């Protein structure tokens, strides 16, 4: 009787769920899944649909009739240039981030202990989560012609080097804040923490015994690094590269604030849907990063990136 008194008002319902765990899972999942499917997937579909419409060149209105002409337009020289430029930038940024991130992640995973480790982790987390715009703005200050970098070059007598870099064709410009080098530096900076954290997580999971075993078997530290540690860290690097690559593909604010007037995919999309009012072409443009990321994610999955997330 006392046992019965302790039973709550909802006990019958609880018993029902206990017997049918699948029903409970379905109920729990219903609301969040509905949100994602309706709001997010629904919107994506709406966008995809738009890419099969076209813009009437004379009236400037969207023709709601199925056509592939918008995709054909995507294949024009100028648009291909934008796509190639963006993908090259994303690749360069990802590679650079992997190179810069690795020593930080390696040190944090293998040598930092106790408080030092906590500080290291925070030192990566804080820039990761602090304001994106603030970070971009900081680089506007650094790269400005009258800014700290020029000052540094003057004081270290390396102005000639700075000028030589700015004089490079295509990637140079009147000042770093109006050049592709500038855009590249800001991208590298802003996405770096996204590379450090998964790399570090993968390195943390390399068992110490593996490294000891490789040493016992006579491997030189370099050999151990190349044949044991690096392959095991690769899924983490791949996981990080998903972020650095994807974020670079879609960003339109960084090249707008630091860069020259030649467009990246994000800027093209933003301008096309905004001032140009050409939603179909904008939609077709967004399909490009989606397709690229589809392939990228499939490749990353093969490298085991999803287990390292």
């Amino acid at each position, binding site marked *: 009787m006392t046992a019965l008194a302790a039973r709550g008002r909802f006990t019958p319902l609880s018993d029902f*769920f206990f017997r049918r765990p699948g029903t409970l899972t379905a109920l729990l999942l219903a609301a969040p899944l509905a949100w994602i499917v309706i709001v997010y997937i629904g*919107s994506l579909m709406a966008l995809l649909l738009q890419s099969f419409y076209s813009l009437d060149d004379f009236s400037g209105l969207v023709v709601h009739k199925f056509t592939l002409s918008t995709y054909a337009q995507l294949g024009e020289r100028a648009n291909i240039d934008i796509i190639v430029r963006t993908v090259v930038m994303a690749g360069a940024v990802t590679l650079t981030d992997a190179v*810069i991130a690795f020593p930080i992640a390696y040190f944090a995973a293998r040598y930092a202990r106790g408080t030092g480790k906590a500080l290291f982790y925070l030192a990566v987390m804080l820039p990761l*989560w602090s304001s994106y715009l603030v970070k971009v*703005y900081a680089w506007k200050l650094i790269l400005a012609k009258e800014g700290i970098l020029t*000052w540094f070059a003057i004081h270290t007598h390396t102005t000639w080097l700075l000028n030589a870099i700015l004089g490079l064709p295509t990637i140079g410009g009147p000042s770093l804040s109006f050049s592709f080098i500038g855009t590249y530096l800001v991208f590298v900076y802003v996405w770096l923490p996204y590379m450090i954290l998964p790399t570090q997580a993968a390195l943390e999971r390399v068992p110490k015994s593996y490294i000891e075993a490789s040493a016992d078997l006579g491997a030189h530290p370099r050999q151990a690094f190349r044949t044991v540690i690096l392959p095991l860290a690769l899924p983490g690097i791949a996981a*990080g590269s998903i972020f650095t690559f994807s974020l670079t593909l*879609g960003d339109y604010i960084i090249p707008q604030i630091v860069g020259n007037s030649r467009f990246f995919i994000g800027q093209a999309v933003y301008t096309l849907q905004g001032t140009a009012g050409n*939603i179909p072409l904008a939609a077709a443009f967004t399909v490009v990063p989606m397709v690229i990321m589809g392939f990228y994610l499939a490749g990353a999955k093969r490298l085991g990136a999803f287990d390292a997330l």
Partner: protein
Amino acid sequence: MRSEAQGIAGLGLKLAATAGLLFLHLPIVLIFVYAFTTEEKSFQFPPPGYTVHWFATAWFDRPDIWPPFYLSLEVAAVATLLALIFGTLAAAALSRSRFFGRESVSLLFVLPIALPGIITGISLRSAFEIMGLDFSFWTIVLGHATFCIVVVYNNALARFRRSSKSMVEASMDLGADSFQTFRHVVLPQIASALLAGGMLAFALSFDEVIVTTFTAGQQATLPIWMLNELIRPRQRPVTNVVAVFVVAVTFLPILAAYYLTREGAETAGGGK
């Protein structure tokens, strides 16, 4: 090898790691320096003089800062609340059972951060247009909640995985029903992870600009205000003062989230 066995890093590694960390932090320090400069028109370095004048200006003479600030706070609060509810439900469902299509469902929740923000933004905008929805507070919230869910979801899922099933079983054995078990056993276990996820979601929403430019219409959140100042600067140091303020505001929740989840680095690789 000897040095590695003793746990001492090589000089090259130390230098590379230190340089990397400096690279991450020095630019933010520079934001602080420029908040005190007397030079209003350019980014001259070193600043010709130092003043605290701009803090007073930002506080008293720039009423245009406040409405975006309040809007950002409100949006972040509502988006975080929605994300907490949906993210926790999703994590609870996916952690407690394995079913056909589970992998795909979990991919769905991560998709809003795996795909570039501009895709989320323009998709939502075209959906609003098709449905004839006008831009409002809620259109911003809709976008923010969608990518905030994943942050809470990641944190909650990590905690669900770590918490042991035996506690729940013990509670059931002692006669508690599943609601009582949830209230007295599960909730205390996941509470700090939820708080951490909530804070990160708040920081993320408060700071978001890419999706917001598509879903806000004529409204300005604080990041949009800042973006406008970057493109068409008026008093540059005032932008720095606001930036310093934003860094301070987001710093605290991030620090708190770290301490709440530090036993197992749950936020690691969670990404935005």
